[in-house]
Each structure stands twice: as C-alpha cells, then as structure tokens.
C-alpha cells in the first residue's frame, strides 16, 4: 500500500537507516530507545503549520523527512524567513528549553514526517540522557551559526541583487546538482517566499530573476532553476 504523500515513513528510530547521518538522532541505543518511547510520529502535507510565533511551547518537532520554513514577523508585520529547516533538525528546541513562547513559526514546505515530543517528556529525556543534551547543544550551535550567517547577509549586503545572488550561491553549494550546462536547483519556494528570505518584496524578486535570466546567468523552467553563471553571481557578492 502506498504511504501517504509518497513518503518513506520510519516509525522506529532504532531502525532508521539515516540516523547516523543526523546530528541530533545519532545517539546510542539506550537514548534512542527512550526517544522512541516519548515521540509521536506524524505525516504532514505541504503548508502545515507546526507552531506559531508567540505560542507557548508545547514541545519539539524532529524533522525526519521533508523541509519546513521558519518565519518571524517584524513589528510592522513583515514576514522574514529565518531558515529553511532540513531533515534531522529539531524545531522549537530553544523555546522548549527556555520555557518561553516560540520565537518563530514553523510551516512545512513539502510533505514531511515529524516526530513530536511533548515539552515535559523532552526535558525529562534531556535530564536523563547526557548524550541527548550534548547533541542538542551541537544542534543549537549550528542554528546559532546559521542565524549569524543570515545576519551577515541582511546587515552587510549592499543591494537586493547581491542578497539574491548570495542566496542562489548558497543553494548551489547545499542542494545543487552539477550538470554540463550549469548547476541545477529544485526551487520549492515562491517568489514571495524568496522575497521573505532576503527581506525584500515579491515584485523585486520577480524583476531581479528576470534580469538574471536576460543576462543568461540563470534559466528557469517550472520549479527547476539552472544557474549557468556562478562566476557572475560570485562577482556580485561582497559578503
């Protein structure tokens, strides 16, 4: 029987084939067994809201497969995507640890499997498994470094074209597939969401992508974006 959303569902962490590649999940058997005992596995379609900025922390979500966008709102109500969470990340950890409202909202951008752990259970799990504490600290450190990279881009880039070029180059490095014509990217974000990643408007993103296309730096076909001019993008970037 096909699984919902064509996802390869893994209900048992102990049997997960990718566990060793994941920063948080790569723990010894006693901790993984304990984790299995407190988590609830669920599958979510694209566009599911996991938690909302300002909401009291209910617990953490371990992203097993799929991706989610983490967003925050400025005082003016403008939305900023602070991160696209990848498989293996623990979402909502800082709010859950501090016992303060979620600082960001989390929404799936593709069908995803998530393991939810209630706040009390997660805190008990950390308390009884030092390894889990260490792995959570490593994961939080990674998040902090990623947030600092975003701050650098938002704070130092001189133009919006530069911010967009930086974003495309990051995608090339992280998710790009090298082909004879250039680096191929599968873009799951709308122009509006790309705008929210670099702190600009949807209209500006559409105009800049058209400019890049006209200059033969990129080519776009549906959700596939081919970067043909990485050198040209590099030349635009100062951060």
């Amino acid at each position, binding site marked *: 029987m096909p699984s919902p959303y064509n996802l390869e569902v893994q209900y048992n962490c102990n049997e997960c084939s990718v566990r060793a590649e994941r920063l948080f999940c790569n723990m010894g058997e006693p901790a993984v067994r304990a984790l299995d005992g407190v988590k609830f596995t669920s599958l979510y379609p694209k566009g599911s809201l996991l938690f909302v900025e300002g909401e009291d922390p209910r617990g953490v979500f371990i992203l097993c497969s799929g991706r989610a966008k983490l967003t*925050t*709102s*400025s*005082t*003016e109500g*403008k939305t*900023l995507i*602070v991160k696209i969470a990848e498989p293996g990340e623990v979402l909502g*950890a*800082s*709010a859950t*640890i*501090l016992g*303060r409202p979620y*600082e*960001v909202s989390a929404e799936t951008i593709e069908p995803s499997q998530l393991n939810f752990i209630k706040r009390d259970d997660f805190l008990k799990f*950390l*308390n009884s498994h*030092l390894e889990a*504490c*260490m792995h*959570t*600290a*490593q994961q*939080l*450190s*990674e*998040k*902090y*470094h990623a*947030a*600092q*990279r*975003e*701050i*650098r881009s*938002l*704070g*130092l880039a001189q133009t919006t074209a530069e911010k967009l070029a930086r974003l495309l180059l990051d995608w090339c490095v992280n998710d790009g597939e090298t082909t004879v014509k250039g680096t191929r990217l599968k873009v799951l974000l709308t122009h509006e969401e790309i705008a929210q990643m670099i*702190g*600009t*408007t949807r209209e500006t993103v559409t105009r800049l992508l058209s400019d890049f296309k006209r200059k033969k730096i990129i080519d776009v076909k549906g959700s596939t974006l081919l970067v043909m001019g990485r050198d040209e993008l590099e030349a635009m*970037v*100062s*951060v």
Partner: protein
Amino acid sequence: MQTSTRSGNVTVESHSETGSPSLLSETVIRALSKLEKAEGWPTGSILFREGEQARGVYIIHSGEIDQLFSARNGHTKPLLVASAGQILGLSCVVSGKPHNCSATARTPSVTGFIDKDRFTGLLQDQPELWWSILQLLSTDINSCYDCMRSLTHNGR
C-alpha cells in the same frame, strides 16, 4: 579567580563585587569561577577575530562587547552586542567551528576566560552544566532572531 589586567583603564573585580551576571545561575557561576582567568578590556580592544579557531569561552562580567561582521571588501559592521551574563565563543567551542565574527569591547569590559580544554573538561566533570549551556545557546539564538527582525524592519 586569577586576575590579569590588560590596561589600567579597566578595573577587574571579583564576582562578589560585580554581582551575578543575570543569565547564569549561582551554581554555574561557582563552577566557572574556579577556572576562569579575569581579563579587563579597554574600549576598542579585540577579544578574537572572525575566522579564528576558538581558544576558549569568554564569560562577560561587565561592559558590552560588539560582535562585528566583515564583508569581502573589508567593510565591517557591529550587528550584535553581548553584555554581562552572556558567554562568547560558546557555540564555537561546542561545534568546533571558527568564530563567525570578531569581538571588540564597545565599553570597558571585564571577562572571565576559560581555555577550551579546561571548559570541556569541566563539562565532563559536571555534566549538570550542560543544561545551562542549552539555555545560553537558546538565548543566543533568540538574540539573533531579534537582530534579524530589526534588520528587516530597518532595511525594507
């Protein structure tokens, strides 16, 4: 607490004189104070530079430390500020990654420095400190989100 002052402009005081930094519990302060070496930093002095491997952690006891980010063209901007109770270099020591930014004293500051090996040794001896590490890192992440919100607000 061992004491070394880099400049006559800064007076290094013991914890009992400065009061407890707000983000650290008394237990953590006691554990850290046994190992830390107090250092005074006059305004503008550099604690560490972007790209350097972390030598250890800096517990800020007083003053404010600018975290400066550099562009390829050499343009540098202070985008985050750390103050008493925060620990600089913590994420780098935990992850083994180099510093993402440079740190310079915005005002005369006093820090307690703990070498990386001694700090990780302390965590092995007193694993209960990991909980405070998680809280501190979570607070640091929240500061970054605050900064991003303000940059978005100002930059559009």
